């Protein structure tokens, strides 16, 4: 049996019945990583030894009939999650040698459920990017076509799942950073509602938009991972204190009577015809499952990218002020005094895209421009959020493409930042509105590249969203196809 070919829910049963051991599962993954990852570059840091000792401890628990929901399951984390004693780089030179003194909440919750951690995954530096090409540790290759990007910023997480280099992963999504790479790599990626998962110990990019979520092989695995990490955390005062439901409660209920909206602003010129066709077929599938499909309007959609690149960069410029060469991270002692040290350390440590966003954000917040840019963007954000709340008065779920095209080529968009930003046009509005959404496979292009379908749910409607996604997945075959490596 190829243990790396199993989903988390399949593996759970085998581990509990002691048909396989956690140690042999972990060894199978470590062997596959050693063989396959050099061609993918999903991992920045591998923690094989810790993983093996963790797996042995898991086996001891399982032998006694004990353990949590994820005991013995080998997972990997985007390198944005701080991990005690394990290097955490955020794919930046400025944190190249940073070893955190604590675990973030999502990490400690996974550990409490018994997960085995295989290592830390590549990403765009500080989660800023849509192609994973902005990494100080090299680009990640798409498992479906090594000449193409995996998407970003959680490109390593998505590629890791698609290449079966971990049973599941966690990523973060600020403007589409879970959903867009999930779409490009043919896996399931869920961005929960803002506040559903604690951000404590997640390196901050844009604090009012960042949210933790799973990337997984199927909808059930995504539900299991969300179940493990969701919930209020006193250490993140923006985490929301509402009860965590059973995320598999809506499985098996189908789509009968579900009111599905198609936002007309998402089916526009510039949408690749192959993507459009796959999404249209997915809509037809939902209809055949009993969903009532209507057209809806989210009138401020076209302003979302502009709004995002002011709000996100402003928050980033503030969050990234902490990298000053004093308490952690790279320090370059050049130039005059303290100020010279700050300027030299930041210049040497940050990559091009990070500098660009810090500059934009600093400008948007600077005296004389604050009202025209930052405040204006926050007001437009209100309009975008209201679009979604109005739509959810009429429908239960929105269906859209995840990205305008399938995975693009490495180097194709690196010279034009604005073109790169526009690849997030369908995912960004959801972050601004703060609601939940997921990407799941809904077809392939003629060239064999996966296409994702975005399902957008009501705030805190993850259980209903996952239920609809599960019904779609059960009725289609797309998730069965695997990248050959």
């Amino acid at each position, binding site marked *: 049996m190829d243990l790396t070919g199993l989903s988390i829910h399949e593996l759970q049963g085998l581990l509990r019945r002691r048909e396989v051991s956690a140690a042999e599962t972990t060894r199978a993954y470590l062997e596959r990583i050693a063989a396959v990852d050099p061609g993918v570059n999903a991992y920045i840091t591998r923690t094989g030894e810790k993983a093996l000792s963790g797996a042995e401890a898991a086996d001891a628990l399982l032998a006694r009939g004990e353990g949590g929901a994820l005991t013995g399951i080998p997972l990997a984390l985007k390198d944005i999650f701080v991990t005690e004693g394990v290097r955490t780089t955020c794919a930046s030179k400025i944190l190249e040698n940073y070893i955190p003194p604590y675990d973030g909440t999502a990490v400690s919750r996974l550990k409490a459920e018994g997960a085995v951690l295989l290592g830390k995954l590549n990403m765009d530096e500080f989660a800023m990017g849509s192609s994973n090409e902005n990494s100080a540790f090299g680009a990640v290759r798409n498992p479906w076509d090594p000449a193409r990007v995996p998407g970003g910023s959680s490109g390593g997480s998505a590629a890791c799942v698609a290449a079966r280099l971990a049973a599941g992963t966690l990523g973060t999504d600020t403007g589409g950073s879970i959903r867009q790479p999930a779409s490009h790599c043919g896996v399931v990626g869920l961005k929960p509602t803002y506040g559903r998962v604690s951000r404590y110990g997640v390196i901050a990019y844009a604090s009012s938009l960042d949210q933790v979520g799973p990337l997984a092989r199927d909808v059930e695995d995504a539900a299991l991972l969300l179940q493990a990490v969701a919930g209020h955390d006193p250490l993140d005062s*923006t985490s929301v204190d509402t009860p965590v439901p059973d995320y598999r409660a809506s499985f098996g209920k189908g789509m009968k009577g579900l009111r599905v909206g198609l936002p007309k602003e998402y089916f526009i010129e510039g949408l690749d015809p192959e993507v459009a066709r796959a999404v249209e077929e997915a809509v037809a599938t939902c209809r055949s499952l009993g969903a009532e499909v209507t057209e809806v309007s989210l009138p401020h959609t076209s302003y979302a990218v*502009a709004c995002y690149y002011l709000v996100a960069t402003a928050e980033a410029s503030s969050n990234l002020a902490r990298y000053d060469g004093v308490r952690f991270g790279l320090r370059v002692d050049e130039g005059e005094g303290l100020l010279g040290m700050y300027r030299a350390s930041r210049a040497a440590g940050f990559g091009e895209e990070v500098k660009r966003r810090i500059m934009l954000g*600093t400008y948007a917040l600077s005296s004389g421009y604050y009202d025209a840019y930052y405040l204006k963007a926050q007001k437009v*954000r*209100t309009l975008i959020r209201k679009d979604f709340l109005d739509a959810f008065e009429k429908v239960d779920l929105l269906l859209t493409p995840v990205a305008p095209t399938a995975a693009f080529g490495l180097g194709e968009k690196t010279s034009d930042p604005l073109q790169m930003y526009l690849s997030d046009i369908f995912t960004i509005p959801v972050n601004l509105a703060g609601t939940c959404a997921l990407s799941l496979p809904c077809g392939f292009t003629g060239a064999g590249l996966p296409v994702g379908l975005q399902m957008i749910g009501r705030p805190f409607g993850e259980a209903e969203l996952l239920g609809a996604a599960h019904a779609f997945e059960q009725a289609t075959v797309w998730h069965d196809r695997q990248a050959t490596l």
Partner: protein
Amino acid sequence: MKITRAQVEHVATLARLALSEAELETLTGQMDAILGYVDQLGELDTEGIVPTSHAVPMENAFREDRVRPPLGTEKALAAAPASEGGCFRVPRVIE
């Protein structure tokens, strides 16, 4: 022009970034293009619209004011580029 090179230099000072001549040149062009793009927000009438700073409506999040064990000096200093006598060491600030 939405932004001049001199403004870009000023922003770099505010952002504590030492940028090369070539970086300043490239950034001026790119920021100009991006600011030109975001200008479309001006088309929207936002008179009387309350700005959103946080997507989930929330008042203050209170918790009990209880003492918890801190990280401790040793752990807090472990990742510092330079430390001395239980403190972070920085270049001389006051002459």
